[in-house]
């Protein structure tokens, strides 16, 4: 007996296939394929996840991770340090830096570098946010700033890998894959884990597709990258000279012959194959439909401040909302442009200008649609930056940095944790990346200790083997 059969799928499949091979199912399939736009999926094909029912009451249905790639300076964005301003140009006290890991500033004289922007008290909550982020300042009451983040990897590539997979060793599933595997997706005609990227404002560090890879989980759980240039999804367009009708004929014929072959092959995998071809065919319609933003009213476009489809972060934010509406479980937007080793003042102004409005628009848009309450937003980078100068920029920094959360189950209008007076180390309520993972999973209804897969002798979890805690203080 094949596992699918054990699941009770066999009966429905056999029924379908038997009828298909007699021509009845074929007709039904044809109707399905030739139907207008994206027909509804056979819901039995949807992956329902292994955390079913949830371990705890879920607050979030989906996650939108706005990854500020390159390592935004917390000192110019979310963590105001007046003492650092006073110390500008003076030697960094050795008590802060002794024995700590340093990237490009190795063996150099370390001097304090004051914040390059002033901060304003924003919203009713009066959270202090940099003037470089005026739009985010306007949604201050929706966001919870975590000022005490810590990570373990000081170079971009391993740090992203750590942030996404909980370890710097490549080959583990990314958090989106874990979540898809744990919960499945509600998107019927789209992948459940989608990634988009934009660029601009600073040195564009490379981003590896490892960051959304499923690692040792099957590839059905991997993130699918939507591309700004060319086809949004690889191979989603028909070949030249092939119309949707032609394609329907081909897909239908493949399905019918596969079904016939099952009469002598008796292979349950055939049913899955047919279902995946149907899904593929529906995606060929649903992806263009998703990207066609002609139905967005002008005030919405105005709020995001972008031309849809122009590849900007703001455009990706708009698409993220459309993906969220369609049930996509995990949406990750990378903006590559926060690596400000030099010229940080101008650099931050430019990069912040590229992401600020889109971020705030996304939060506002979701709130207005009632979707913010079940959407978790994470905004932040793979690490922060040194309080010490690197010329007129800052180096990578992992002892303390900031990010913010918004939406589902998160208390808006609050700050959590603190770095020391110079913004070097997280000293009050430190939040490790693992704690963030645990908290995110908790909001999705998952106990992080119970979502694991045996791999190379270990029960591997997103949060790894070190202790991790749900940061309940930031939850409502």
């Amino acid at each position, binding site marked *: *007996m094949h*596992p*699918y059969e*054990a699941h009770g799928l066999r009966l429905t499949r056999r029924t379908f296939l038997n009828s298909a091979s007699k021509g009845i199912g074929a007709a039904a399939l044809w109707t399905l394929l030739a139907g207008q736009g994206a027909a509804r999926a056979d819901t039995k094909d949807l*992956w329902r996840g292994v955390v079913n029912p949830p371990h705890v009451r879920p607050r979030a249905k989906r996650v939108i991770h706005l990854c500020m790639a390159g390592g935004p300076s917390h000192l110019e964005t979310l963590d105001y340090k007046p003492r650092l301003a006073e110390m500008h140009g003076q030697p960094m006290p050795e008590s802060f830096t002794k*024995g700590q*890991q340093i*990237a490009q500033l190795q063996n150099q004289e370390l001097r304090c570098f004051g914040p390059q922007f002033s901060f304003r008290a924003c919203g009713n909550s009066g959270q202090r946010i940099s003037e470089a982020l005026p739009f985010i300042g306007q949604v201050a009451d929706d966001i919870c700033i975590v000022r005490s983040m810590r990570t373990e990897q000081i*170079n*971009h*590539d391993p740090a992203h890998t750590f942030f996404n997979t909980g370890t710097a*060793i*490549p*080959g583990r599933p990314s958090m989106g894959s874990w979540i898809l595997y744990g919960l499945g997706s509600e998107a019927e005609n789209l992948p459940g884990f989608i990634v988009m*990227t934009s660029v601009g404002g600073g040195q564009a*560090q*490379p981003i590896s*597709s*490892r960051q959304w890879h499923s690692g*040792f989980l*099957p*590839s*059905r759980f991997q993130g699918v990258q939507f*591309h*700004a240039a*060319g086809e949004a*999804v*690889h*191979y989603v367009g028909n*070949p*030249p*000279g092939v119309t949707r009708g032609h394609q329907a*004929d*081909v*897909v239908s*014929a493949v399905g*019918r*012959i596969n079904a*016939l*072959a099952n009469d002598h*092959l*008796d*292979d349950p*995998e055939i049913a*899955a*194959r047919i279902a*995946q*071809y149907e899904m*593929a*065919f529906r*995606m060929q319609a649903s992806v263009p439909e998703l990207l066609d933003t002609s139905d967005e009213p002008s005030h919405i476009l105005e709020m995001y401040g972008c031309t849809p489809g122009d590849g900007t972060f703001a455009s990706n934010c708009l698409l993220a909302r459309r993906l969220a509406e369609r049930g996509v479980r995990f949406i990750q937007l990378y903006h590559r442009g926060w690596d400000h080793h030099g010229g940080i003042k101008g650099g931050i102004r430019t990069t912040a200008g590229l992401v600020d409005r889109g971020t705030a628009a996304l939060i506002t848009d979701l709130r207005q649609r009632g979707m913010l309450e079940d959407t978790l937003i994470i905004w932040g980078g793979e690490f922060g930056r040194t309080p010490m100068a690197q010329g007129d920029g800052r*180096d990578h920094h992992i002892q303390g940095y900031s990010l913010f959360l918004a939406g589902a189950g998160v208390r808006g209008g609050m700050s959590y944790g603190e770095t020391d007076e110079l913004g070097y180390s997280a000293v009050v309520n430190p939040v490790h990346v693992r704690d963030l993972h645990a908290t995110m999973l908790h909001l999705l209804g998952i106990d992080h200790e*119970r979502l*694991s897969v*045996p*791999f*190379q*002798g*270990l*029960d591997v979890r997103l949060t790894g083997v070190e202790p991790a805690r749900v940061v309940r203080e930031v939850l409502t």
Partner: protein
Amino acid sequence: MNGPRQWVRGLWPKVDMDAWSLVPAALMVALVCASAAAEPPRFNRDVRPILSNHCFACHGFDAHERKAGLRLDVREGATAVMKSGARAIVPGDAGASELMRRITSADAGERMPPVEIHKDLSAEQIEVLRRWIEEGAEYEAHWAYTPLGEVKKPAVGNEAWVANDVDRFVLAKLEARGIAPSPQADRVTLIRRVTLDLTGLPATAEEVDAFVKDQSADAWEKVVDRLLASPHYGERMAAYWLDLVRYADSVGYHGDQEVTVWPYRDYVIKAFNENMPFDRFTRENLAGDLLPESTREQKIASAYNRLGMMTAEGGSQPKDFLARYAADRVRTTSVAWLGSTMGCAECHDHKFDPFTAKDFYSFAAFFADIKEPGVYSGYMEGVWGESLALTTPEQEAELARIDREIMEAERALVTSTPELEAAQRAWEARLAQPTPWRALTATAIETKSGVEFKLLEDGSYLASGPNPGEEIYTFIAETDLPGITALRVELLPDDSLPSKGPGRAGNGNLVLNRIAIRANGQEVTLGSASATHSQAEYLIEHALVDNGQLGWAILPKAGERLAGVFETVGDVGDGGTMRLVITMAQTYGYQHTIGRFRISVTNAPRPVRADTDLADEIAAIVRTPYEERTREQRDKLAEYYRSIAPELGAVRNRLRDLREERKKVERSIRQMPITVATTPREMRVLPRGNWMDETGEVVQPAIPAFLGAVSRTDERLTRLDLANWLTSEDNPLTARVLANRVWYLQFGRGLSDRLDDVGSQGAAPTHPDLLDDLARGFVDSGWDVKALVKRIVMSNTYRQSSQPRPELRQSDPFNRLLARQNRYRLEAEAVRDHALAVSGLLVRTIGGRSVRPYQPKGYYAQLNFPAREYEVDTGDHLYRRGVYTHWQRTFLHPMLKAFDAPSREECAAQRARSNTPLAALTLLNDPTFVEAARIFARRIVTEAGDDPEARATWAYKQALGREPGDEVRAILVEVYREHRAQYEADPAAAMALVNVGASATPAELNVAELAAWTSVARVILNLHEGITRY
């Protein structure tokens, strides 16, 4: 019977995860344990997995984590009297065993395993433990670590079914349960199966027919022998090996730059094809460089040690990355050869298997002699540390030609002629007189940033004011000096300049990157240049050409006067007033600009050199009257003169160009990283894997202690010692691991389900004696891989039908008994190869550089350092087998990725087999597959007659080896007819379809006909059966 598994609350082992993922865990446990109930529990098969997964983390091998002093992994520990006075296990008396009391306790505070670790035992598992204790709690040595002895072949009833000993082991188990093996698969299925298994390619229709018709007794063996002799066998085996050793064409970290290692891939293919004994293969991989008088091929093999990911990211710390590379080698080598997850012991002793952290670092110490930086530079030239030059025959010929021409030019330079001697005498005469220089007074000096210049009394100019990073000085002057032969730039010190100048950089330096002169608007060609001094690497000649950062610099002569002289090729000026525009580009950056300078011109006969250019020795000879010079001195002076003689300028230029050309060719030679040994680095245990912690014990190379020891009297152990141990009688793991994996390649699943872990968290083999017999035979054959493969595929077990058997559905859902063959989707490379082979597009060349098939545009947009565009290959390179596809670790080709090929960032022993819409989209729309379809269509139209039904039949058979049934044929013909009509009406669409891809479209064929058959071909190439091995 079913081997037990470690079910973890709704989870499952990695194997076939997709297929298994829908099975409720409880049901699985029930299935497994139902069979376990039938016979007495055995430690390795039934008990160890439970203890390992539920207990060992706290009561196992890791002494640091051990709770209550109790260890359950050895019998002495489990049966000892604890502090409490109780004994965890009292053999024969479950009731008296504390373990039983605790795992069944109703008190949540007492119950084991603790509730917070979420590892509750099921009722069935508790029952297994109870019965095992009742029956004496006998421990067994872990199956994988026991020595490989001779195995007794079991007796069977149905001797007629036994083709070789493999069958005996399988049949004995089946007969014990009253199950008959499955009948042999039909011949079409058989030859498709074995051709895919041994070569990764589909059997051609002709091969199928030949085998179906061959009634001779050894028909099967002939096929097997033919396939084992095929050069494609090596490609198939290599594809798997390359996953294990995580071979790729890019470095993986950060910029994921390319690296040239394909000769290693070709070495692996060749090794399998030539059936190199696996022990030798092991030695060459790990220590090819250490073998006496190692050959070029063995050096290439040693690239094994250099296949891991490498970084060139700025800001990375070398020690950090050296630690990562070391750990990566331990992980890869231990999984690839030992099937052991030593990687777990990087931060602490292994929780489940007897590897200590010290073992981990001692193992790493074997590789501490590999010469490598932690962080690489030079990657822009494609050099990744120690390398082997892969000079092509063309490059070799080119170098030989250049060297020949260099020799000719050099000969001209050493040959004296009467003309040269006369010119030399005139030059000597002039040397007595100083060169008459005339300083130029600027009418203007222009700069971008408004640098201010003050004219000093000596005719020099001093810069002040803005001090930009880079600058271009445009010096404009007039002169009436006729026949100018040279221009001199003097760089002068000044107290107002940093470090007294003459440059404006903090250290007094400057870089003159480029000088150019226009006379009355005409570009003046400059010939040779000389200087009183040039900084190493920053020569005055660099100022004559655009050469990036390079130019003329002056360190360590800050604070001194220097001069540079540039000869003109022709005489410049006729005596009338002439406007000279001299541009001096100083683009190095960081304020490396000129602080004080003076420009002069002369019309003295060439050669004109910078004034103190004459070395002391030459100057002394010149001062010596001709008659008094020794022969040696005369030769020396003549040689010197020829080096500056204007008469030989052309030859010298030619020589310079040739040398540049040679450098260019040298740079174009691919450099392949290989292993070069050096003094071993000190290797310490890193506490918790922290590379910054240097308090750990210093370790020497050693194999894991529990597996014994390799000793050499005085010397440190080497990689060669490790390689020898890996394939020695003392190590039972390598042979078992390899036999299990070769089995996997022929059955889609190992005899032990876990190909990457033979430890206690792995899976005990379903047929341990068979595995041992295969491993024993493998060693005894002299590590003969082909013999091992042949042994397996010659068995009747292999030749069984893979058809599911309803009567075994309940008792053996996962076919652990091997009462039939398995069936599974082809691997990514084979999916590609299948379409290309069926269509006739496949280019069957073996080996060579990696190739780049069509790939969506912009896929590499997220890459940087450098940013790059994928350059699609042309010609035959487009149609090579998947094993040759360029393997970009961070952006693997989407087709390979869609079909579960691993990124090869880490060692992978087993691939998932998923079934996704992305895979469907790839097969439907990737131009590779569309082009294959249209080329297949061309064959259908030209090779299969005119009748649509006959064509459909022929096409189907080409792909699947058998003829279609009537219904299938009807569907194919229906697609043809409808599309034929539609494409007839839309010739533009038809034309577009039949032109997908780079291969030519024959003009004589009817386009609509071709397009319609392309649709049919697409249907056939997308069929499930075509990409499945039955």
